[in-house]
C-alpha cells in the first residue's frame, strides 16, 4: 500500500504537469515573456496547486504522524542565506533558458524530444556538482 501511494503520487504529479501545460517549454517561456507572446496560464497552475495544497497540508499536519512513517520530514530552516538566493537565481536563469524545471523535464523524458534528452542528463550532472561543492559559503554575498 505504501509503495502504491508513492507510485500514485508520482503518476498524479506527472499527469498534472502534462494537463496544466507545464511540460511544454514553449508555454513556460511564454508565461515568462510578459512583453511578447504572453500566456498567463501558468499562474493558474501554481494557483490551482496552492489552493489544494494549503488547506490539505493544514489538515494532514493535524495528525501526529504520517500514515506509513513515524515522523513528518519537514524543512525546519527559517534563515536566509547566500546559497538560497544564489541557488534560486541560478535556477531561474536555467528555467528561463530551457523552459524546463526538474519535474516537467523528467516527465517529458519518455517523449524523447532531442532537447529533453540533452537537458535531463545535464540537469543530473548539475545536481551532482552542487552536492560535491556543498561546502558552506560565507554569509555575505560574494561579488
Amino acid at each position, binding site marked *: 500500500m505504501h509503495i502504491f501511494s*508513492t507510485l500514485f503520487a508520482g503518476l498524479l504529479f506527472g499527469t*498534472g504537469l502534462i*494537463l*496544466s501545460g507545464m511540460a511544454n517549454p514553449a508555454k513556460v517561456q511564454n508565461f*515568462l515573456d510578459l512583453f511578447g507572446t504572453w500566456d498567463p496560464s501558468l499562474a493558474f497552475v501554481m494557483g490551482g496547486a496552492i489552493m489544494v495544497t494549503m488547506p490539505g497540508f493544514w489538515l494532514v499536519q493535524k495528525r501526529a504522524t504520517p500514515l506509513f512513517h513515524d515522523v513528518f520530514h519537514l524543512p525546519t530552516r527559517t534563515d536566509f542565506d547566500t546559497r538560497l538566493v544564489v*541557488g534560486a537565481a541560478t535556477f531561474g536563469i536555467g528555467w528561463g533558458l530551457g523552459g524546463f524545471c526538474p519535474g516537467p523535464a523528467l516527465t517529458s523524458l*519518455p517523449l524523447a524530444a532531442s532537447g529533453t534528452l540533452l537537458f535531463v542528463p*545535464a540537469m543530473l550532472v548539475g545536481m*551532482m556538482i*552542487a552536492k560535491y561543492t556543498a561546502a558552506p559559503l560565507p554569509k555575505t554575498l560574494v561579488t
Partner: protein
Amino acid sequence: METDFTPFASLLGGALIGLSAIVLLAAHGRIAGISGIVSRILPPSVDKAGLPQGIIFLIGLLLAAPLWVLVTGAAPVQLVSNNGPLLLIAGLLVGFGSVMGNGCTSGHGVCGISRRSARSLAATMTFMATAFVTVFVLRHVVGG
C-alpha cells in the same frame, strides 16, 4: 511560438499536482519537491533510507506521459527547443541552482508557499525574477 491560454486545464492540472503533494505528505511525511527527491538519490551521499521511495515516485512520474498517450491516443502538446548547447547550459543551471537553493518550482513554489515558509517565498520570488529577465534577454535583446 504562441500558445493558447488554458485557464481551466492549467487550474485542474495544478490541482492534481497539489493532490500529489498531499498524498506524499499524508502517506510518507515527505515534501513533494522534485529537485530534492532526485538529488537525494544521486551521488555523493545517497540517502539509502529514502532511495526506494524516491525511485518509485520517479517511476510514477515517468509513467505519466506513456499513460497519457495510451488514454488520450495523442502525445502531449510540447515544443522543446532543439538548440543543443542552450539546453545543456539550461540543464546544468537548473540542476545546480535547484540543489544549491534547496528547491525548485515544486518544493519552494508549491509546497513551501503552502507551508507559508518565508524561505520558499523568497526563493520563488528570486527564481521568478531571474526567469522573467532571462526570457526578456533571450527573446527581446539577443533574439530580438
